[in-house]
């Protein structure tokens, strides 16, 4: 597609509910990143994939957070037993990854998660 698509755009979850956030990267982009952006803050890294391999998950805040990209394209970020502190905008980005030349990320518009 023309850009990175994320769905849903908004999600309200009751505390304790499980949620799944979807990211459709730009077609052909090898790398896919998930970031969490709290209100008034910069994005914070969660995890990153190169094709279907999850190469870095050091930013996932707890074992309630899980991400997958089984076929190297669409990715899902799952949060189990949501807590109020999980309320944030979850951003997905993709990158073509072509060796030394950094093309930079293209971000989606994000999913705003509100846990009540």
């Amino acid at each position, binding site marked *: 597609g023309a850009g990175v698509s994320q769905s849903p755009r908004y999600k309200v979850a009751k505390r304790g509910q499980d949620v799944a956030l979807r990211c459709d990267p730009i077609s052909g982009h090898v790398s896919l990143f998930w970031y969490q952006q709290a209100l*008034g803050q*910069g*994005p914070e890294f969660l995890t990153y994939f190169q094709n279907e391999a999850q190469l870095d998950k050091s930013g996932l805040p707890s074992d309630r957070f899980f991400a997958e990209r089984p076929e190297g394209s669409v990715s899902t970020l799952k949060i189990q037993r949501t807590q109020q502190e999980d309320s944030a905008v979850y951003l997905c*980005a993709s990158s073509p990854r072509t060796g030394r030349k950094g*093309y930079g*990320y293209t*971000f989606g*518009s994000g999913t705003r998660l509100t846990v009540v």
Partner: protein
Amino acid sequence: QQQVKQSPQSLIVQKGGIPIINCAYENTAFDYFPWYQQFPGKGPALLIAIRPDVSEKKEGRFTISFNKSAKQFSLHIMDSQPGDSATYFCAAGPNFGNEKLTFGTGTRLTIIP
């Protein structure tokens, strides 16, 4: 060592002025320094990026100045316009931007007519 410090937190500039936003990093493994622009309800959009082998890069009205020895870099916006009003984030990362980025805390820029 992963922090990227950004200042100021907010900035108000008259139309036509040159807002300057500053960032400092600590990790010497960082070799890619992009700036992103974010409008409300949208994801960050890449404006311009620099590698540490150059001290300045210009793209249109946007200029990055880079000081490798001081581990600092800054964004200058020439002939600023009200449409430039947005939040700006600096970031830094290793491996030529192919891995995770560490973002600054953002600068809310307002350009008044």
